[in-house]
């Protein structure tokens, strides 16, 4: 390289350019936000829009909570069932609490397991741990314990008819049918093969309710598809309805309705988690009215929470086990319902 003045100037110029560019490059590298720490600023908007979803036509609310909520003295109440005489049965915390219809404490049955699901029929209580169903008398005597399910099992709901007990297992995404008296599993149409009584459910999170109506027909929820299904005693679908959506006639978000119960006239009460709504539907899936809306409940935390259970008592009240407030909420029809002709009881 010859060191003519021309070359010198050129080299100095290039050096200056390089220094400048290196400076800019360092600044640019520091300005990169590789982790997105500066955020997208979407948090508030989501919250706002969730608040908007809570709105619906309030004229649809035909029920009121005219009794104060009954405090549930449990850390994590999970299951609710009602005796024929109206006594209330609440499961959770390795115990079952039995309350009178007015909330008075009657007795507490301590258990070796924490019940995840409950149902009562006559004066028999069926309580389920994660994988085992236990049969108890109304005063807490253990009558039988059925053979446990496999280790994937997660029993989330029970329903008892005169003959059978239906066990909803969200872990295996199946519903099994047990002979009430022998505690043996029974299969579809008298078959004796192994396998589930009913399967094919879409269960993204652990709740999948099952109920029985006055006709002995089975009501199941396919939560992943936002469907309520009416089935005959052999589990064949007679009707299926429900659509996902935020509209008041629809079931909001993922895995709803989270719980169902049957009213005396055969109409179905549904409970939705997250955007908490309790609604009454006809058997055909038409929305009849609304029991309670999102503003009647405390917002559930986004992460883990116990999904409330609902039940209907013999006087036609809708009971909601509010697991966020840890109370039992009672809703009563505002005006007496029209006498129904179809009721079989």
């Amino acid at each position, binding site marked *: 390289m010859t060191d003519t003045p021309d070359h010198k100037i050129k080299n100095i110029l*290039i050096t200056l350019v390089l220094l400048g560019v290196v400076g800019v490059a360092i600044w640019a*590298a*520091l300005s990169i936000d590789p982790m997105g720490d500066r955020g997208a600023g979407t948090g508030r908007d989501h919250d706002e829009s969730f608040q908007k*979803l809570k709105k619906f036509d309030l004229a649809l609310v035909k029920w009121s909570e005219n009794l104060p909520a009954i405090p549930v003295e449990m850390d994590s109440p999970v299951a609710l069932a009602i005796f024929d005489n109206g006594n209330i049965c609440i499961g959770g915390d390795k115990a079952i609490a039995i309350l009178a219809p007015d909330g008075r404490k009657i007795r507490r049955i301590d258990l070796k397991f924490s019940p995840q699901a409950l149902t009562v029929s006559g004066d028999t209580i069926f309580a389920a741990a994660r994988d085992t169903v236990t049969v108890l008398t109304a005063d807490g005597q253990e009558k039988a314990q059925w053979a446990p399910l496999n280790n994937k099992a997660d029993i989330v709901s029970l329903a008892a008819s005169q003959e059978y007990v239906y066990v909803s297992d969200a872990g295996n995404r199946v519903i099994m049918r047990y002979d009430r008296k022998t505690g043996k599993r029974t299969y579809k149409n008298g078959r004796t093969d192994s396998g589930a009584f009913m399967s094919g459910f879409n269960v993204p999170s652990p709740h999948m309710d099952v109920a029985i109506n006055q006709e002995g027909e089975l009501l199941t929820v396919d939560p992943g598809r936002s469907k309520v299904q009416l089935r005959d005693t052999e589990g064949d679908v007679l009707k299926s309805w429900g659509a*996902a959506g935020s509209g008041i006639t629809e079931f909001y978000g993922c895995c709803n309705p989270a719980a169902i119960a049957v009213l005396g006239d055969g109409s179905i009460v549904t409970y939705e988690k997250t955007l908490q709504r309790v609604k009454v539907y006809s058997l055909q899936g038409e929305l009849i009215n609304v029991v309670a809306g999102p503003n009647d409940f405390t917002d559930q935390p986004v992460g883990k929470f116990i999904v409330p259970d609902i039940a209907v008592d013999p006087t036609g009240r809708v009971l909601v086990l509010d697991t966020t407030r840890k109370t039992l909420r009672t809703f009563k029809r505002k005006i007496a319902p029209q006498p129904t002709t179809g009721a079989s009881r």
Partner: protein
Amino acid sequence: MRLITAGILVLLATSTCALGTEASKYPPPDLGPDYVQPPGHMPEITHEIMPIVDIAILAVALVLASYLALKQRSRKGIWILGVVSLIYFGFYRQGCVCPIGAIQSIAEAIFNPAAVISLVVILFFVLPLIFTLMFGRTFCGSVCPLGAIQEVVLVHPVRLPGILRHALGLLPCVYLALAVLFAATGSAYVICRYDPFIALFRMNGPAGMLILGACFIVISMFVGRPYCRFLCPYGLLLSWASKLSWTRVTITPNECVKCRLCENACPYDAISKPNTKTLPENRKRGVIGLLGMMLLAPLVIGASAWIMVKTAPTLAKMHPTVRLSQRVEREDSKEVSDTTDASQAFRESGRPVEDLHATAAEIRENMTKGSLIAGLFIGLVIALRLIALSTRRTRQDYQADRALCVACGRCFEFCPVDPRNKKPTDGGLA
């Protein structure tokens, strides 16, 4: 190979099937009654074959690069292959997967048992290394799109002073250590985050990355391959492989005639001059220097490890969980009055704060352990370099430096020696 290919195909087919059912599994998010959901569409399945095509093209390109550099000795061929690689791996495949980034996936797969790594990534990492062990850094010369873009824009090479070259030459080792450390602790893939050319390949990206890319292009016009020489962590691995390589590019196809024509041919300072005529004046001084460096080595390694361990708490901030934990702590102590998206989301998840802090503490501990290893590694590299610089090897003629040569072939056209003749021609210095 066929077995592997079949395996990959089956794997891809099942994964796409899984994807298909996943999409219909949950109802779409509800954005209110006025919002009409756009129809969903599945990514095209044909796309999934691309990684296999990439591997095949990578292998072919490596073979071709080695052939062009070692056998054909065609600078033009190497240049064209470079441009093709730039277009394919760079602009068409948008710079991903690349062997440089694969370092991180490999590191994470080694240190984190839960991490999954695909065969494609492993092959991308291993193939260039194998070729380098056989033929030298032909991958850098004409297959790597990052190398190619710097090669193409180099118009007016200036020579950097040796002191600066050696100083900057330390960066790849630090970069490699940090990249592996961050990947192994699950903190971040920094190589990808700060890849200067990816934004150009994609013609999209945050302003900072685009500006960084533009700066690298401008620097590359005057300084040969700044990224390859002073940053690329994979280049460091390849330079070690190249030192051990079975064969490599030579400046002359035959015997060097020491005509000096190639003296200034290499913009990457990879040509070493013969030193037979300039023997060191004082052998004793050389020996003392070497001994000094050897004694210094443990000190350097120790100091480097100590510094890295000291820096570990800062490095841990690269992990999102650690940052979130610190942010939540600041919010809880009322040091700040607002929340970030991350802290808001965390609070809404209902997860206990203690849980978060415990996880963060665990990550910090891992980071400290990793930093110790990274520090030892950096110290070792520095010590070895110091020792290497204190020794002297005799070179009879003009040679391409085994570690630094990227097989670009620029020096070929300067060499007057005819490859067809056994005997050196009489030319050059007449």
